[in-house]
């Protein structure tokens, strides 16, 4: 499939049409969706209307925007008016939101064509899409393996060339880890850079919407469209969308890049080898490599698995059979709520709601939730110290290549460890990018993670571009 940048250029020049690009995307979806289970819903009617509008603007001599006619896949925890939005949960099955997320309006405003909603772990809780109530997504590169998660559908859509770009959400690694496992770029932007209005909340202090793409330029272009202040999100950063595309070619000459011991330890050998190969590439491009240890990162997993469930237990209280989605009838309202939630939520969601309720309950609050919030402070301080010695940090995205279905489903703790390298960035509210770099076991792709302080996206994309070129994708 052609890049998003190329498609937009050709649509704007009239060399192709949005309708033709949409047809290509829909054909690719039709060819493999039964096998891979990437899309939960394809919005044929809405996409055709959006494409017709773009083509009409071009015909009238107007500019439809930087993503003119580019098909985009949307994770199914992001609301789009009138289009079924399920969070891959029975509790929201059949619900059609009466409003759109800000990112949907931004995509449409930039001329992009949202083609449909992609599969995820229920309420974005998981690392493999195996927690979807509607069945897992398969990895397009090896259908016997998971695509990662929770944004597995959005990663697979791009990896399978169904759409050139897609959007997901990242609470503890849910964009970067599936990007790594599917061999594409995934970006977790600085907290507040992209509006969360219309993203169904999992853990509000950690959630962030971000892009998937096959190349760095497309990712930067998409993030420029998504980013920028939104008065509808009170945690939205106050400034307009930053210039990213203009800095993709900046390189890393003179940059100090810190290899962090805690962001590779425990990873498989093939993964560690690629991180070291990436260091060589960055050094060759003029960067200085600094070796760092940030012991506080080892506490990230523990803190995250108390903070995220605590916030989830509060956020998911709204699913009670009253205002939207499923209702299981019962004689009185309390019994109705309990029956609805029991029938509507899957096992992982129940686990996290209970864990969070426990961590917040009287007698345990200080020992668990309170302690986790203090560890979060320590992590932020530790990152701050590290960024005095390095401009960017580097490590692995995930401990291994894509794993087989069922490999971790019986052991939640093993599944949680998939996110051990990605979680710290969310706790600190900072930015990180996963870049495909080399391959490992069974020829499967490996993701290298670049991390930066808040608002460092331009620098991260420049470094990611250096790795992309070094990995043979000029």
């Amino acid at each position, binding site marked *: 499939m052609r890049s998003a940048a190329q498609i937009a250029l050709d649509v704007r020049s009239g060399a192709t049409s949005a309708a033709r690009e949409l047809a290509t995307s829909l054909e690719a979806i039709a060819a493999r969706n039964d096998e891979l289970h990437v899309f939960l819903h394809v919005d044929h009617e809405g996409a055709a209307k959006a494409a017709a509008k773009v083509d009409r603007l071009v015909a009238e001599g107007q500019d439809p925007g930087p993503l003119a006619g580019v098909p985009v896949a949307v994770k199914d925890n992001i609301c789009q008016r009138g289009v079924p939005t399920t969070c891959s949960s029975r509790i929201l099955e059949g619900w059609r939101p*009466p409003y759109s997320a800000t990112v949907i309006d931004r995509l449409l405003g930039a001329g992009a064509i949202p083609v449909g909603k992609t599969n995820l772990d229920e309420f974005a809780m998981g690392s493999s899409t195996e927690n979807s109530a509607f069945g897992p997504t398969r990895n397009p590169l090896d259908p016997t393996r998971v695509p990662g998660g929770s944004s597995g559908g959005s990663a697979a859509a791009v990896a399978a060339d169904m759409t050139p770009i897609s959007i997901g959400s990242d609470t503890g690694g849910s964009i970067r880890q599936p990007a790594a496992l599917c061999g594409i770029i995934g970006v977790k932007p600085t907290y507040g850079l992209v509006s969360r209005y219309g993203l169904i909340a999992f853990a509000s202090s950690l959630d962030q919407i971000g892009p998937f793409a096959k190349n760095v330029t497309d990712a930067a272009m998409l993030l420029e469209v998504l980013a920028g202040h939104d*008065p509808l999100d009170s945690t939205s950063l106050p400034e307009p969308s930053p210039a990213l595309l203009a800095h993709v070619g900046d390189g890393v000459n003179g940059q100090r890049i810190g290899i962090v011991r805690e962001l590779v330890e425990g990873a498989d050998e093939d993964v560690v080898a690629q991180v070291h190969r990436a260091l060589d590439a960055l050094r060759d491009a003029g960067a200085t490599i600094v070796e760092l240890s940030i012991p506080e990162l080892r506490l990230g997993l523990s803190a995250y698995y108390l903070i995220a469930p605590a916030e989830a237990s509060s956020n998911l209280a709204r699913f009670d059979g009253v*205002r939207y989605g499923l209702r299981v009838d019962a004689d009185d*309202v309390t019994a109705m709520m309990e029956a609805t939630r029991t029938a509507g939520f899957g096992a992982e969601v129940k686990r996290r709601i209970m864990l969070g309720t426990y961590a917040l309950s009287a007698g345990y609050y200080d020992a668990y939730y309170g302690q*986790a919030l*203090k560890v979060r402070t320590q992590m932020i301080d530790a990152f701050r110290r590290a960024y005095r010695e390095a401009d960017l940090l580097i490590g692995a995205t995930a401990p291994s290549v894509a794993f087989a279905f069922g490999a971790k489903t019986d052991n*939640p703790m093993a599944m949680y460890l998939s996110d051990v390298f990605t979680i710290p960035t969310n706790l600190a509210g900072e930015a990180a990018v996963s870049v495909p770099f080399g391959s490992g076991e069974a020829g499967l792709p490996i993701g290298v993670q670049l991390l930066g302080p808040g608002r460092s996206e331009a620098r991260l994309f420049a470094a990611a571009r250096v790795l992309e070129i070094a990995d043979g994708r000029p």
Partner: protein
Amino acid sequence: MSSPLRREDVAHVAKLARLTLSDEELDTFTEQLGQVLEHANDMGALDLTDVVATAHPFGLINVVRDDVVRASLDRAAVLDMAPDAQDGRFAVPRIMGEAP
């Protein structure tokens, strides 16, 4: 090391969270949640008395908008997606009365 979590704790938390668990689920969840809490013991061992808690990465500041009337969601469109509605309101089963 024994789990810090007891079966009755899980049953209590499930009740608070409005979830019904079978006996089998209670056993499984007690074990699985216990493992997560055990992992969290690495934090519990730290003396963080003087550390300030962070609930939000950049600190939350109240954001207010101008107090002007503007369009909100269409009531009919919202109620149309509700499990039950009556007279322009969400409808629910009996709230008051005898316990079931």
